């Protein structure tokens, strides 16, 4: 009962098929900004939010999208158990107006086990564009439960939904209509006790189909001509792969061009502020060690993270989100299913791999959309083989410094984008190879099945997406920079300034790692930075720089050219840069990702494989590159 809840919150469960705009409804009701994406299975963990209507406070619980409550997959199990045994008083079932029949199956199943139900027929605008007009009043009369039509992005819709919730929450549960009640009773038994599920479900599906037909008006074409044309192009035999490649290149190119200017500006600003900071501290007669720790340690690492790493991260992320919101990602999974199948895996791994470009930890959580446990593990273990948002600005910096030349300009940016694309393709290729390798060894088995709904293309809310993900990403990176870069900067400064015997701790540590690192084409300082950068990859390159600088006199750092000069002075060659870049691509994932893998797999063994696999690949490749490099020079 609601009274057992201390704050008298009334709990509402949000239920619906995948990709019917549940998260958008959730956001419009709660005013939160849960990220929405146009692909089935976006919501993998239940978000919660609150909203108020008059005196009542509703707590909304978002459940993962599911087609039915017969527990076949993890999501269905979670949703069914929550509805059967959870605290929800009302189920708000979100349906897609354009394919009501299929959505009604889930609705009827929910009606069978939850006494109070409100139906939200969403995406009315999208359906109208395809000339499909559901008869909402007719549906309400047939089912005996409130039906609200919504266009989830509109404010008015939220008010109508709240009004419907207010109406049902304290009213006695409605009696199901006579033509439905025996069927619902049968379904209730089958869902609770698992008896003759299939027969009950088939009968329910047939009834859902009838009701759907009865309440849908209009001679609409559910799969619009525009979508047909787009799909023929985006998944066509000749065009699919070139387009994927071009889109990747375009996204990277925009990122590179867009990041150049803010990077330079931020670097100048930070160096000016740093000097000011130093002057102020000297004026306050702070001890030299404190000035060193704060300005040369903390400030320098922090400013490098923000100036070099932040701009590409903050630009790539919204671009990626736009692609995600348009509905292109499921097409990538469709195009890549055959190659993944050849590696005994599932095409949905392409979706989680794409999520990995944003953040490997998010990609690992996203693997829940893969039903087969073996294929899910394959996707989890190989996720960090693609560079995440925290790694590719470093790749970019290395490419522009050593492989292209930091001159800038259109041609240089295009060349950088091409090289970065090659690196990413190397990561993708390695994902396939590692997947095949794992499925022949630790995770042996044959590919299971692939069923993926391809949603209609939607025009993303461009301005909103850019603004939100720009802000969110910036805040996230700044937060992480403060949490990780500050202690790391302190640590490395202390190591550089505490002397034991002949040299500083830093020199000892670097010298200890140096023989092994040299084999890999790196040096001791680079490897040490990778080790210290375990909490966040974006601090690795700033730490290398910091380590080099801590030995010598303070150097003004502005552009990449100055950074390059420091690296060259410390013995970097193009081979060092290439090896560092390859090691960036393939090394142990960050600690957040590792903890997520532990949480998702429940096994330290798999977590160890997840760390060892990319490291082994990276070391092997670096070893080969370094050996060839020595031969060539």
């Amino acid at each position, binding site marked *: 009962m609601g009274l057992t809840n201390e704050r008298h919150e009334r709990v509402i469960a949000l239920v619906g098929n995948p990709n019917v705009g549940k998260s958008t409804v959730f956001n419009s009701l709660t005013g939160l900004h849960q990220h929405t994406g146009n692909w089935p299975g976006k919501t993998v963990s239940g978000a919660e939010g609150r909203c108020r209507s008059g005196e009542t406070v509703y707590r909304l619980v978002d459940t993962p999208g599911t*087609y039915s409550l017969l527990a076949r997959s993890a999501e269905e199990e979670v949703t069914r158990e929550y509805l059967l045994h959870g605290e929800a008083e009302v189920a708000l079932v979100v349906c897609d107006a354009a394919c009501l029949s299929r959505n009604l199956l889930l609705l009827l199943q929910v009606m069978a086990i939850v006494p109070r139900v409100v139906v939200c027929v969403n995406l009315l605008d999208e359906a109208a564009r395809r000339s499909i007009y559901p008869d909402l009043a007719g549906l309400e009369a047939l089912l005996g439960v409130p039906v609200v039509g919504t266009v989830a992005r509109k404010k008015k819709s939220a008010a109508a939904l709240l009004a419907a919730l207010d109406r049902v929450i304290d009213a006695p549960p409605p009696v199901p209509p006579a033509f439905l009640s025996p069927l619902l009773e049968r379904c209730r038994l089958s869902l609770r006790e698992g008896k003759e599920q299939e027969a009950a479900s088939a009968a329910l599906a047939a009834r859902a189909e009838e009701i759907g037909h009865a309440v849908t008006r209009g001679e609409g074409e559910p799969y619009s001509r525009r979508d047909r044309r787009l799909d023929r192009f985006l998944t066509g035999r000749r065009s699919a792969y070139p387009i994927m490649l071009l889109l990747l290149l375009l996204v990277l190119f925009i990122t590179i061009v867009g990041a150049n200017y803010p990077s330079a500006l931020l670097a100048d600003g930070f160096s000016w502020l740093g000097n000011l900071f130093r002057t102020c501290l000297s004026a306050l007669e702070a001890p030299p060690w404190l000035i060193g720790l704060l300005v040369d340690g903390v400030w320098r690492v922090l400013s490098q993270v923000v100036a070099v790493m932040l701009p590409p991260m903050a630009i790539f992320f919204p671009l990626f989100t736009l692609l995600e919101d348009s509905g292109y990602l499921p097409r990538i999974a469709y195009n890549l299913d055959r190659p993944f199948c050849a590696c005994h895996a599932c095409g949905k791994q392409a979706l989680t791999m794409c999520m990995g470009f944003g953040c490997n930890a998010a990609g690992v959580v996203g693997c829940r959309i893969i039903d087969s446990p073996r294929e899910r593990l394959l996707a989890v273990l190989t996720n960090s083989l693609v560079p995440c948002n925290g790694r590719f600005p470093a790749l970019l910096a290395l490419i522009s410094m050593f492989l292209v030349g930091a001159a800038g300009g259109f041609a240089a940016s295009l060349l950088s984008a091409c090289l970065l694309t090659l690196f990413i393709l190397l990561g993708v290729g390695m994902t396939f190879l590692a997947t095949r390798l794992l499925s022949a060894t630790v995770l042996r088995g044959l590919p299971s099945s692939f*069923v993926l709904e391809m949603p209609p293309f939607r025009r993303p809310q461009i301005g909103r997406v850019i603004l939100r993900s720009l802000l969110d990403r910036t805040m996230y990176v700044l937060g992480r920079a403060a949490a990780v870069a500050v202690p790391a900067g302190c640590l490395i400064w202390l190591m550089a300034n505490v002397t034991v015997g002949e040299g500083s701790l830093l020199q000892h540590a670097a010298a200890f790692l140096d023989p092994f690192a040299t084999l890999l084409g790196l040096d001791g300082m680079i490897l040490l930075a990778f080790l210290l950068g375990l909490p966040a990859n974006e601090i690795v390159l700033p730490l290398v720089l910091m380590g080099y600088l801590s030995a010598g006199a303070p150097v003004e750092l502005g552009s990449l050219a100055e950074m390059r000069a420091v690296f060259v002075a410390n013995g970097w060659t193009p081979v060092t840069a290439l090896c560092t870049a390859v090691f960036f691509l393939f090394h142990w994932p960050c600690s957040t990702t590792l903890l997520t893998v532990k949480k998702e797999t429940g096994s330290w063994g798999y977590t160890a494989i997840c760390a060892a696999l990319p490291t082994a690949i990276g070391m092997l490749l670096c070893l080969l590159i370094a050996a060839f490099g020595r031969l060539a020079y």
Partner: protein
Amino acid sequence: MCQQVRLCDMQPGERAVITSLPPSALRQRLLDMGFLENAEIECVGKSPFGDPNAYLVCGAVVALRRQDCHGILVRKQVAAWD
């Protein structure tokens, strides 16, 4: 006139009605997604390697591998004047 064929043998652009959905590990999932007997279905495309294929059923486009829709039979709709 009508012709019974396997779903996986349909070519893009062809429409049909599902006639049988044999028991399999995937049957329930397919039923949930609208692959009901007597439901209309259209093959709307092939992926670049020819497998999986995309089908329009119950108002949504669903991609399925050949091996997964192996046993599904459909009745092709051929107009009398064809």
